[in-house]
């Protein structure tokens, strides 16, 4: 199965609801206030947010004289793909190891995403070390260990309750000695409003760069697609604390639309790099804005 097919399949539920609605709105009708309002509703229902939804419909209103009644969908597709910008897949570069720091609130799927990501790097022939820096949650280390085993990655861990920064440091040091390609640091889930925990995260990042000046090369924020407008706040606060370079959007295999990525891209300019579309070890995909929107509308 091709990547596009796979994405389409994963997004089929998202696609169905959205496209059907857009189709039914503009069936036999042109762009007018009524259809625009219905479109705005549909966008808001996809968690796009009030502001972004109003912006998209606003553009449509401005250009309504140029749009033929049959091509509203095409216009929307272009408009929304433009909002998301170019594809920014997660690629490793530079000196080894390439260090990825994963962050996010509780329960978004950080550990699972790390497991899938590790498996992907290993299957590409790279060596991977996982750093068990979630030393807070009960059995988080054990969970990561199982994923290390499944994916064929190595793991660096300390005792539960130990300093997460120290674990990350040791992992990067170990990777330097062993010539490992990639280090993925798992951190404890934390609400973005808890400043002591955000300070702890800053420290983890600082300490990583003590082991290796350019690291972490990637700070990956894991977001749950089911989350509503709060996701924008999460992105904002994590970005302020540790400088988020990319987003992994998980749980897109449900009925949630993950529309908040439009607002995040627009307000913060952070690209979505990966999407999670299932529980299987290879249900992690590169996020391609064009494909994403195409799949939404096809």
């Amino acid at each position, binding site marked *: 199965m091709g990547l596009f097919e796979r994405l389409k399949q994963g997004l089929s539920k998202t696609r169905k609801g959205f496209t059907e609605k857009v189709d039914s709105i503009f069936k036999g009708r042109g762009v007018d206030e009524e259809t625009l309002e219905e479109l705005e509703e549909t966008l808001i229902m996809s968690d796009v947010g009030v502001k972004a939804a109003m912006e998209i419909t606003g553009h449509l209103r401005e250009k309504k004289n140029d749009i033929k009644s049959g091509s509203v969908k095409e216009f929307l597709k272009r408009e929304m793909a433009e909002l998301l910008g170019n594809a920014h897949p997660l690629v490793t570069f530079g000196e080894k190891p390439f260090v990825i720091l994963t962050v996010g609130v509780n329960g978004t799927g950080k550990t699972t995403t790390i497991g899938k990501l590790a498996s992907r790097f290993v299957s590409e022939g790279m060596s991977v070390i996982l750093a068990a820096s979630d030393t807070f949650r009960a059995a988080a280390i054990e969970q990561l260990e199982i994923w290390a085993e499944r994916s064929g990655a190595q793991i660096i861990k300390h005792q539960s309750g130990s300093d997460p920064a120290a674990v990350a440091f040791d992992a990067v040091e170990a990777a330097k000695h062993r010539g490992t390609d990639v280090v993925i640091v798992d951190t404890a889930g934390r609400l973005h409003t808890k400043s002591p925990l955000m300070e702890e995260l800053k420290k983890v990042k600082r300490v990583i760069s003590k082991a290796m000046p350019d690291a972490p090369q990637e700070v990956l924020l894991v977001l749950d697609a089911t989350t509503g407008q709060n996701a924008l706040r999460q992105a904002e606060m994590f970005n302020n604390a540790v400088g988020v370079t990319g987003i992994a959007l998980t749980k897109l295999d449900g*009925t949630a639309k993950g529309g908040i990525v439009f607002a995040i891209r627009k307000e913060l300019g952070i690209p979505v790099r990966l999407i999670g579309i299932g529980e299987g070890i290879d249900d992690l995909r590169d996020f391609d804005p064009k494909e994403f929107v195409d799949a939404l509308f096809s």
Partner: protein
Amino acid sequence: MFETLSEKLESVFKKLKSKGLLKEEDVDVALKEVRVALLEADVNFKIVKDFIQRVREKAVGKEVLESLTPGQQVVKIVHNELCDLLGGTSSKIYLSPTPPTVIMLVGLHGSGKTTTAAKIGMLFKREGRRPMLVAADLQRPAAIEQLVTLGSQTGIPVFHSKEIKDPVTLCTESIKNAKLEGRDIVIFDTAGRLHIDDTLMAELERIKNATTPKETLLVADAMTGQDAVNIAKKFNETIGIDGIILTKMDGDARGGAALSIKAITGKPIKYIGVGEKIDMIEPFHPDRIANAILGMGDVLTLIEKAQRAFDEKEAQKLQEKILGESFTFEDLRDQLRKMRSMGPLENLLNMIPGFSKLKGIKIDEKELVKVEAIINSMTSEERRNHNILNGSRRRRIALGSGTTVTDVNRVIKQYMEMRKMLKMFKKGKGKIPKILPF
């Protein structure tokens, strides 16, 4: 930070000085803002639509109370209506007449079922009951270990098995075990699943049929967006739920999902999770969620918490001091000590509307210890009159408290800002809660 709805409505109605009845066009302008606020709080679109219609009917032609501005009047109507929709105050978990009472927790991945299981267990343990946790999540790696760890932290036994691969069998076995061990509450921690995963939903149904739980509770993340409706509906229709537990309410989520879930299922929200620690679970109060949705802060909870630490008279005295502008370092120290006895500071600060806008006040608990040390190193004269704190006094205080002159300067600066702020609040005509934490 969000501009609160009250602020928005105030500005909408600013030009409107006339009292009397709420006019249709005024109400419509106001309700446009209410609509956006509700949508931004993630209340489901369809529910917002119905809600606005209802409020409109109630508001148009309503007399504006003497003491309120038109904006406040609309907020009041919206608030009342929200509380109504959110349902009665804190319904409890009902116990079965023939023990053990079986409680089944269900929900999506990562909604917080395992932590919640331990928290509920702890609630019952505190009541003197004998709860047991059941590790029925056989899917997620290390889920069993997580519950076992939480069990040993709380001293609550955990029923688990590496041999039993079927959650239905595991759950029925656990009840037999509970009866043998004389456990009167059994809590199932089931695996997270998507509501559209028919196979796994059918599995939940089988567990429910085999064990007939007294309470089946949906554990939902307070940050859930528009999809909350679909999730709650599907869980309720497929397996039938008796109530909802809303988790991660300690963030800055506006909790619109609460309204959506309540409206779509008609089932009560029983508890809210407010932190990662095992005792951080609270009964649900509709008015508080209504406040959060409207961006009004959780003033009520704050006042309640404050009342525990302050006695009335002292609060009165403090109030007078603030108004009389004689708020000294001694008072500040008193307040700091009381605040620290009121639980994590952040939880308190989050509840105060507009607090995030105030600068210069650290939310770090360690910082508070430092501040107290600095105040302790002052002479009583210095505490009463900060104006005499010259360079050499500041150096002495820094030495005495084991801090630096910079630290001392900062504390003095913050103290002065605080005084300024208190004065501002005083001028702000009762916009603040009656009892300030400092």
